């Protein structure tokens, strides 16, 4: 099976950064850290 991606296609890191679903956990993580800082 060919697992290589097209060399012209964007890197997987840029694909992750452009995925809206990625930012949902990131925002929740940041908010959770803020809550932790506030309560501790």
């Amino acid at each position, binding site marked *: 099976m060919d*697992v290589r991606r097209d060399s012209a296609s964007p890197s997987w890191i840029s694909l992750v950064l452009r995925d809206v679903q990625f930012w949902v956990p*990131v925002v929740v993580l940041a908010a959770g850290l803020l809550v*932790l800082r506030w*309560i501790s």
Partner: protein
Amino acid sequence: MNATVAAEETRPASLDAAGDARRLRTLQTVGMICGLTAGAWLGAAEAPTKLVNSGLSPVVVSLAMVVGVFLARWSLPALIQGTSYIAADLRQAPHLIVWAILAGCLWAVANTLTIFAVRDVGLSIAFPLWNSNSLLGILWGILFFGELRGADWRRWAGVIGGALLMFGGATALAIASSAQSASVDALRGVAAALAAGVMWGTMYIPYRKAYLTGMNPLSFITFFTVGELGMMSVLAIAFSGGVAPLVHQLSAARHVLFWLLAGGVVWVVGDLFQQYAVKYAGITRGIPLSNTNQLWGLLWGVLVFGELRGGPHDVLVKVIVGSVVMALGAGVIALSSVSRAEHARWRGAALREGARYGVDAGYTEARAIGREPGTIEYRRTWIDWLVVAAASATLVGFAATAEAPQIAVHWKWATALAIVTLAVLAGCALALWRTTRFS
């Protein structure tokens, strides 16, 4: 167990070719059994931690457990599939490493928040608030991954109603088993518990994303735990006032660390089955079923550690009612099977994921039905045995210096529950192996 991927037994397949109704039903049943097994083992993981009454900082207790989790998360995959299999899996979808580490960070912060929540508002209020994570997980499953889309109203009612029943039962159990500690700072405690629930509920997004893409849960957890241990270490250092104070605390508690590490190892077994439950039954079914861990934790507490003995009548009534309601909710969810129409939505979401990240469609489709995409055999190497030996030696080292627990334990009940828990594990592992070869 044979670590090789038996090529002749794992025929390459697509959902169209092999995705008949019987195969989908079998996978879903296995997923639900995995969810229930996860509940048994996640509940049993509470037992070793009850043996520790050392006055340790809660964050240090959490860190010690995560170290045990880390050891198990690297050694179990090496033992079951081998690191060469894991490496090949990661080459197929390297972007999922980021998602796994992110999920581990979410878990660590959420777990720390629960410690503060219990401190500030007590278990009875805090637990139901963070247990709402399964409801949020269901929401994300519907919004992002097409779960319950195309399902008839009975399945919607079964999943949502079952989750609400479990939520209600969990609330009754938490109230009954709570020490009713006085509220120190209610607002902050409630905020901490809610934030933990939101974080755990959101953590299922990376889970589902990984398994729709086709990643093996054993591969996912090896990087999940990097985020988990990294974030937990940062938090423990921050809350302990630096590295030196943290090391001092850990050193002072070296005689009880084994029990915490053991708790972490048991927890990983439960979590691993939870991952398989999410993969084969989806978030909407797998997570609520694994939340039956509260029932098992209660069984260990009551039968083995004598909790609630001689307690008020109304407390015992709440325990019984809460347990029955929770079990009823789990039963309702287990009966809400995934229809073919809904499964087609799952497949659509999986194909979108694969297309977005350039993952081979054959890999995604084969893994979706619990099969291997190719005929390559992956064998264990010396690296696998080194990982397993190092983890085992670490555990044995801590066990050698461990002190006997200073708490009354009903050993007959402990033995009985351990046998039942092991039997559940054996049955589920056998079903998973026969159906998917731990794919």
